[in-house]
C-alpha cells in the first residue's frame, strides 16, 4: 500500500511537471500578432484586459475595416473619451457578440460602435483562422465556453477540443516559430494603440463614388446568421443600457442596396446608423478615397483620424459621452505621437525635418548612417546641427575621400570618420540583430556603402548619406533613405 501511495505521489508530480511543460509549449505554439504586425490582434485582446475596470466608455467592434478606422487615442486626445477598439480581421457578428459579452464582464461602456462590413458576409467557414485569432486570447470563462460551443456548432469543421487543447490546432507551427513566439512576456505589454491597427500607405487610385441616398430603394438580403447576431448584440446593449451605434466605413464594396438594408435594420432595431459611404457624410468629414485609404476597404491613419474625429464629435454632442482623464489613456499619448511620426517618417523628403523626427524618436530607434561619398559640398551648418542633436560630432572633411559611418542605438552611439574605407560590425537589441555597415572608397575612388541587418541589405547605396532606421519596438526597418549631399537642397531618394 505504501509503495502504491509513493507511486501515486511520484505520478502526480510527473504529471504536474509535464503539464507545465506542455502549457509552455502550447503558449509558444499559439500564433501571436503583436504590434509589430499589420494586424496586432493579440495585442488588442491582451491589452483590453489591462484596462482599469469600468474605465472604457466606448467600445468599437467589427472587422478589420473598423480596426483601421477607430483610434482610441485620437478620441481621447481630442474629446477626452476613453474607448477601446476590439475590432479585428474578419470579425463576424458572432465573434463581435461574444467579445461584447466578454467585455461587459470588465467594463460598463456607454456606447458600442459596430462596424457593419460583416453584416453581409456569409462565409463563416473561411474565417476559421481569424475566428481563432479573436477567440484564442479571450480569457477562459462562461463566455468563451459559449463562444466555442456556438462557433463549433455553426462551423462543423472546427473542433471544440482544439480550443481547449490548442496543440491540436497549432502544433504544426513548430516549423515556423519566430522571435515573437519566444517574446510573449516582452511583447504582450505593448498595447498602446488600444486595438487600433495603423495603416500608412495610400491607395492613389480612385474609382470610388459615394452613395446618393434615395438613388435606389432596393435592399440586399442580410444572411440569417448575421441578422440573428445583430439582434443579439442589440438585445445585449439594451439589457446593459448601452447605446448601439452602427457605422459603415468607406469601402468600394458598399452598394446602395446594402446601405438600404442596413438602414432598414437599424430603423427596426431603433439604433442610429452612420454610413460614411453616403455623399453627405463622406463630404462632411472631407474624406478623400484617393488619399485616405490604403486599399479599397481600409482607411489609412489619415483617413482614420477623420472618421474618429467625426465619431468623437457625435459621441460627445449626441450621446453625451462626457470627457474624463484617465492614466491608461494619458500614458499612451507619447506612443501615439511616436506612431504618427513613424508613419510619417518614410514620407519626409527634407533632411532637416527628417533629423528632427529621428531626434524625437531616438529612444525607440536604432539608426544606421553611412556615406557614399560622391560629394558632400551641400552639407551645411543646419544639417550638421541636426546630426549633433542626435549625439554625433559629424566632423566631415569636405573632400572626395571622406568616409563616414555612425550607429545610434538607445544604449550607445558609435561614429567614425576617415579617409579610408570603414566597416563596423555588431549587434543591436542585446545581441539579437546583427549589423554590418560600410562606407567604402576603393582604389579607383569609386565610393559605395552598405547597411546590412541580419545579412540583409537595406542601404539604398545612392550617393550621399544613406540612412536606415530600425524600430526596436516593432522589430522592423521602418525606413531606408538616401540624401544626396552633392546636390543643392539635399534631395531624398527612397
Amino acid at each position: 500500500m505504501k509503495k502504491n501511495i509513493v507511486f501515486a505521489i511520484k505520478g502526480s508530480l510527473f504529471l504536474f511537471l509535464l503539464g507545465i511543460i506542455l502549457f509552455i509549449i502550447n503558449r509558444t505554439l499559439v500564433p501571436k500578432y503583436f504590434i509589430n504586425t499589420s494586424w496586432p490582434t493579440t495585442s488588442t485582446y491582451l491589452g483590453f484586459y489591462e484596462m482599469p475596470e469600468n474605465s472604457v466608455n466606448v467600445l468599437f467592434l467589427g472587422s478589420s475595416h473598423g480596426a483601421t478606422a477607430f483610434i482610441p487615442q485620437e478620441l481621447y486626445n481630442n474629446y477626452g473619451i476613453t474607448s477601446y477598439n476590439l475590432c479585428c480581421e474578419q470579425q463576424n457578428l458572432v465573434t463581435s457578440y461574444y467579445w461584447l459579452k466578454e467585455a461587459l464582464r470588465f467594463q460598463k461602456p456607454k456606447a458600442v460602435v459596430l462596424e457593419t462590413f460583416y453584416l453581409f458576409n456569409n462565409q463563416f467557414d473561411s474565417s476559421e483562422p481569424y475566428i481563432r485569432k479573436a477567440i484564442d486570447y479571450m480569457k477562459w470563462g462562461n463566455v468563451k465556453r459559449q463562444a466555442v460551443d456556438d462557433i463549433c456548432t455553426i462551423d462543423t469543421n472546427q473542433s471544440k477540443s482544439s480550443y481547449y487543447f490548442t496543440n491540436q490546432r497549432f502544433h504544426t507551427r513548430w516549423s515556423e516559430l519566430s522571435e515573437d513566439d519566444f517574446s510573449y512576456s516582452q511583447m504582450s505589454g505593448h498595447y498602446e494603440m488600444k486595438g487600433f491597427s495603423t495603416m500608412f500607405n495610400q491607395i492613389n487610385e480612385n474609382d470610388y463614388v459615394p452613395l446618393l441616398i434615395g438613388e435606389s430603394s432596393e435592399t440586399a438580403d442580410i444572411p440569417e446568421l448575421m441578422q440573428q447576431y445583430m439582434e443579439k448584440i442589440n438585445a445585449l446593449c439594451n439589457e446593459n443600457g448601452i447605446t448601439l451605434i452602427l457605422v459603415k466605413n468607406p469601402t468600394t464594396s458598399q452598394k446602395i442596396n446594402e446601405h438600404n438594408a442596413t438602414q432598414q435594420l437599424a430603423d427596426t432595431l431603433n439604433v442610429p446608423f452612420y454610413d460614411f459611404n453616403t455623399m453627405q457624410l463622406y463630404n462632411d468629414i472631407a474624406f478623400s478615397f484617393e488619399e485616405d485609404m490604403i486599399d479599397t476597404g481600409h482607411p489609412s491613419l489619415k483617413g482614420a483620424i477623420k472618421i474618429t474625429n467625426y465619431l468623437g464629435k457625435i459621441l460627445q454632442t449626441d450621446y453625451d459621452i462626457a470627457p474624463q482623464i484617465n492614466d491608461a489613456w494619458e500614458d499612451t499619448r507619447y506612443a501615439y505621437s511616436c506612431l504618427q511620426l513613424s508613419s510619417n517618417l518614410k514620407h519626409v523628403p527634407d533632411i532637416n525635418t527628417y533629423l528632427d523626427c529621428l531626434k524625437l524618436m531616438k529612444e525607440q530607434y536604432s539608426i544606421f548612417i553611412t556615406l557614399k561619398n560622391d560629394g558632400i559640398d551641400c552639407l551645411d551648418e543646419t544639417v550638421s546641427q541636426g546630426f549633433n542633436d542626435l549625439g554625433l560630432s559629424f566632423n566631415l572633411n569636405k573632400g572626395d575621400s571622406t568616409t563616414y559611418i555612425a550607429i545610434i542605438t538607445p544604449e550607445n552611439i558609435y561614429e567614425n570618420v576617415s579617409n579610408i574605407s570603414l566597416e563596423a560590425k555588431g549587434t543591436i537589441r542585446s545581441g539579437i540583430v546583427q549589423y554590418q555597415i560600410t562606407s567604402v572608397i576603393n582604389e579607383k575612388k569609386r565610393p559605395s556603402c552598405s547597411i546590412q541587418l541580419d545579412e540583409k541589405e537595406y542601404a539604398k547605396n545612392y550617393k550621399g548619406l544613406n540612412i536606415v532606421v530600425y524600430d526596436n519596438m516593432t522589430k522592423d526597418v521602418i525606413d531606408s533613405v538616401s540624401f544626396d549631399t552633392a546636390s543643392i537642397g539635399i534631395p531624398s531618394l527612397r
Partner: protein
Amino acid sequence: MNFVSLNYNLFLLCIVILYYILPKNIRWYSLLAGSFLFYFIAAKEAVVPFIAMIILSYCGSRIISCACTRTVRYRKYIFILFIILVTLPLFFYKTVFSPDTLTAPLGLSFFTLQILAYLSDIYTGKIYPQTNFFRYALFVSFFPQILQGPIPRYEQLGIQLFTGHPFQEKNFVKALQLILWGFFLKLMVADKAAVIVNTVFDNHELYRGCYVILGGSLYSIQLYADFLACVTLAQGAAALFGIYLTDNFNHPYFASSIHDFWRRWHISLSTWLKDYVYIPLGGNRKGTLRKYVNLIITFLVSGMWHGNGFQYIAWGLFHAFYQIIGAFTLNFRESLYKLLGFAPDNFFKKHIRRVFTFFLVTLAWIIFRADNLNTAFSMIGSVFTVHNPWIFFDDSLFTLGLSWKELLILFASVGILSVSSTLQEKICIRDIIIAQPMIIRWSIYIAAITAVYVFGTYGFEFHTQDFIYGGF
C-alpha cells in the same frame, strides 16, 4: 474509438481505475463491462451480430466438447457445421458477394479467427471449453485486442483475463512505455509517411517511376509502423491490467527471405494460418508439389481474409509464388554468392538479402495498397520504364505534402524505429530505461511525450488516419 484519440484514452483510464479498485476476484467484470462498452461506443450497430456470434460460438464450443467427450459418431460433422456457421459472416463480408454499402462488424476478421481457433482447439482436445458464458464473452471481446489483434489463443489469454492481477508499479510503467511507443509509431512514423503515400497512390497517373519506389517504400514503413503501433497500444493497454498479449512482429524488414518475413510479420495470423490451414491441408508432409499447392491455398486464404478486392488475392498469390520461386532458385543463388566470394554468414550477404526481400515485399505492398490490380501493375511497370532519379536530388520530394522539416522528422523517426529494432534484437530498451535514475527516466519520458506532442501528425488539417488493419 481510435486508440490514439483522447476519448479512448480517457475511457481506458476509467477502466484501469475501476479494475484496481474492485476486489481481485471480480476484477475481470470490469474488463467485461469495459469491452462491451467499448464495442457499443465504437460500433453500436454491430453489437447485436457480435453478441450473436459469441452466443453461437459458446454453444458450439459446449456442443463440440460434449460430442468429443462422449465420442459421438458425427462429432466431426458437428464441428464442421459450427466452423461453417462461424465463418459465414466473414465469408459474406469478405467476398465479392458483399455489397459495397455494407460495412463489416468491427473486428470481425479478428474475432472470427479467434473463435475458429478456439473451436478447433476444443475439437482436437488441446483445451477445455470455458463453461462460464461471461468469461467466454470476455475472451472474445477483450477490448484492447478486438480491433486489430493480435489474434489470441485461449490457452495463452484466457487464464490471464480472469485472474485478478495486483497493481505492480514496474509493470504499469512498462505498459505506459508501450503506449508512448505506440503513439510515436502512429503519429510520428505511420501518419507522417501516409501524407506522401496518399499523394503518390491517390495521384498515381502523375507520380511514376522513382515516385512509386518512394511511395511504395514509405507505404511498407507506414503499414508496419501503423500495425505495430496498434498492436503496441493494445499490448500497453492490456499490460495496464497486468495482462500480456503476444508479440505480433519480430522486426519483419530484417527478414532475409520471404519465408523468413512471414515468420516475423503478423505472427498471430501467420501461425493461425499455419496451424489451422497449412498443416491440416498436409503442410509439407505430402511431397513437394502438394507443399506448393498448400502454400498457394494458405496465401490465397490470407489474401481473402484481408479484403474482397482482387488485389488482395493477387497480393497473397505473389507471396506464395515468391516462396515457391525462392525455393526453386535457392541453390542457384547460393552458388552465385559463393562465386562472388561471399562466405555463408557474410555481413554484406545478409544485408543484400534483406534489401532484396524488402524490395519484393514492397512490390507486393504496392499491389495491396493500389485501388485495383490494373493500377498496381501500371505503377509497378513504371518503376522499370520511367527514368526520373533526379527527384531524389532536386526539390521534388518537398511537393508531396511534407515540407523539408517534416520530411526530416519522418526520416529521423524511421531512423529511431530502425535503431531501436536493431537494439531490441539484443536488449530490452524498456528495462534499461526503467533501471535509470529517476531524473534520466523522467527526462526521457518528457522528451518523448513532447516530441510526439509537437511533431506528431494529428489535429487540424491532419485527420488522424484510421489504423489500416482496423479496416480488415
